[in-house]
């Protein structure tokens, strides 16, 4: 065992840190309200910011977006541990990171797409200037994704799509939908669902904003009214969409902004060290000390799950339990960090980010609201526990 980074990994971490610090738009780390593990306060969804686009392009140009891809496909061939190291530094500085296009679309196209699709999509994704949104959830298909009702019917060289998607993060600033719809209603949905790509500009698509609890426009509901999609946009084989979805879950295992937890914590500790209450240093308050120590330990546990998951993937072990435990634990921690953090801030904990009295730009107040989403999005805690129990421990479904 060696819990330290080796020399190569340390050098890599340094390089990653230097990149992030040099490429981040000035002031972004402080301006950004992103809460670790949560989905609502994502600044880049508020408006498409050219500075963020430029950051992504630089990530593309310098190979960070494709660091995990095999070298023969133009990637960096880096290990999962190195991806984890990079992701940790990226999220520590609250930088925009990998997204649907790099995390899900590109790997799926590389594995299951046609040669034409690879040529059409991969180079654009590598450059970092193409955005996808995830068109999975529907009003009646949340945790039960198999219940989707949106239909895609063949018509000559096209599919004609009708239905509605919801909780569509960033659909309003994206270029394409990465979408699943039913293509055969006579079989169970896992055998009759197809994965395809839809241009956001196609006639018949209506995108309506949903303002989330933080006050941000992150979600949308998206309506499809006789939307024509060329069949060449079908990814993989028709009717096998759910299979590709399941496989893609493997690519998302490390998509938790692990460094963000430590960042918020470091700032909280810094605040506590400088603050006084009742004429005494806040850092001398036993209750505050206990709470901070408790958070430090939880963050350590989350980091351990994170790196263990990466390490297992590098060593060809399936982190089925570990990846779900990571998601479950980290998102619970997202809430705890916000909850305990606002407690420590006392009466100031309720001040929103635009108040001049708000400690740390109101990060914790925003986080307190945003962290509601953490244990719900991308598979609720309950779904994660089902996965751990059934897939991990082999407990029966019935």
């Amino acid at each position, binding site marked *: *065992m060696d819990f330290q980074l080796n020399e190569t990994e340390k050098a890599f971490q340094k390089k990653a840190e230097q990149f992030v610090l040099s490429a981040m738009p000035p002031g972004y780390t402080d301006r950004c309200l992103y809460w670790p593990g949560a989905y609502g306060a994502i600044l880049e969804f508020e408006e498409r910011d050219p500075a963020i686009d430029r950051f992504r392009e630089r990530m593309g140009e310098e190979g960070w977006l494709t660091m995990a891809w095999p070298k023969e496909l133009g990637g960096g061939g880096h290990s999962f541990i190195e991806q984890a190291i990079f992701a940790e530094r990226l999220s520590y500085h609250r930088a925009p990171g990998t997204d649907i296009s790099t995390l899900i679309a590109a790997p799926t196209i590389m594995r299951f797409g046609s040669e034409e699709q690879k040529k059409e999509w991969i180079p654009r994704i590598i450059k970092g200037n193409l955005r996808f949104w995830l068109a999975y959830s529907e009003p009646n298909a949340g945790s039960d994704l198999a219940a989707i009702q949106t239909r895609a019917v063949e018509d000559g060289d096209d599919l004609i799509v009708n239905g509605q998607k919801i909780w569509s993060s960033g659909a309003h600033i994206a270029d394409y939908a990465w979408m699943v719809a039913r293509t055969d209603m006579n079989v169970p949905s896992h055998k009759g669902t197809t994965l395809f790509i839809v241009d956001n500009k196609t006639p018949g698509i209506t995108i309506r904003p949903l303002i989330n609890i933080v006050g941000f426009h992150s979600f949308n509901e998206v309506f499809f009214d006789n939307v024509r999609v060329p069949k060449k946009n079908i990814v993989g084989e028709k009717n096998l969409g759910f299979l590709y979805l399941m496989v893609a879950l493997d690519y998302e295992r490390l998509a938790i902004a692990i460094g963000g937890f430590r960042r918020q914590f470091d700032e909280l500790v810094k605040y506590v*060290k400088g603050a006084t209450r009742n004429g005494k240093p806040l850092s001398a308050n036993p209750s505050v000390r206990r709470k901070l*120590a408790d958070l430090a330990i939880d963050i350590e546990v989350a980091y351990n799950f994170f790196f263990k998951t990466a*390490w297992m993937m590098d060593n060809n072990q399936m982190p089925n*339990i570990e990846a779900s435990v990571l998601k479950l634990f980290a998102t619970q921690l997202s809430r705890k960090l916000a909850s305990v953090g606002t407690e420590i801030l006392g009466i100031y904990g309720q001040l929103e980010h635009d108040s001049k009295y708000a400690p740390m730009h109101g990060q914790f107040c925003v986080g307190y609201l945003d962290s509601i989403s953490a244990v719900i999005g991308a598979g609720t805690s309950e779904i994660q*526990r089902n996965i751990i129990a059934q897939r991990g*421990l*082999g*407990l*029966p479904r019935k």
Partner: protein
Amino acid sequence: MDLGLTEEQEMLRKSAHEFLAKECPKKLVRELDESDMGYSKGLWNKMAQLGWMGLSFPEKYGGNGGSFLDLTVLLDEMGYNIVPGPFFSTVVLAGYTLLEAGNEEQKKEYLGKVCTGELIITVALIELDGTYDATSIDTTAKAKGDGYILNGTKLFVPNANVTDYMLVVARTKKSSNPDDGITIFLVDAKSPGIRCTVLKTIARDKLCEVVFENVKIPESNIVGTLGRGWPIIESVLKKAAVAKCAEMVGGAQASLDMAVNYAKERVQFNRPIGSFQAIQHYCANMVTDVDGSRFITYKAAWAVSEGLSADKEVSMAKAWTSEAFKRVAVLAHQIFGAVGFTMDHDMHLYFRRAKAGELAYGDADFHRNIVAQQIGL
């Protein structure tokens, strides 16, 4: 970064697991828990033959030259199976005290006999105050002639009822700094003036009250430097905390495995109770606690093993694992229902040890305090 065990460590884990399952069945665990001695000489000798007592001690004292991490792997398995007896007190507490503070002669003689299994030895530390703090040390050792006279009462001394020797932590000088003036003495348990009474404890693990009344100790039995014993104890307590975590990780894993197996078999409402989400979610929470404990414990053990300053890692591990094992044991009990509440069932053996483990070498709050200091508060 390498988060896996070596091949040798995997082999050790596997062979220890198999050995203990065969040689230390729960029937024996119960007998020993309920016995006066609290250990089996037969099992002790077999463990000695496998070289377990000397696993992590240097070869020149008769050990196997393994690492603290190797010992962690073994303790993990011992916690999984439960092995009542003086292994922990002899090897972790006394063995490491001798290794860190003993002179060559003491190490050759006493650590040598620890490695062969010939010697049972323990550390007498805690007093009426009940804390792991130097201020609590009131037992005195006063110089007289060519030796010292020991007076005082020690509590929670593990396995003192069967021990050959004790390392007694005593005050040799009153000082404004409580850490100063504490000395470690090697005391023959048969010395006149020693009275030992086994305390009735939740884990039935033979923690004892030991009263020292004018016990004579030769000067040559000082271990380490006169008056400079406390830093040694602090260092050993750190190792003991991680070692206890390792046992608790094993105990928590065993509790989880037992509960999951039962949930797959137990049928109510015409279906295995493991198919109910309430039970599945308990199991998922247990996995989180078990794996969380394992990773944080092995990280601390690795840091100790590498000789790094591991204060933060150790305290994080002990704070987390102390509470995690309790949570796991409680949920396991919930899954077993009424049958787990009986003496015939194995679950209480773990439930008891979760509490004992929590209290040993600093509970969660004790260690959170250290973590708070370590993060600069």
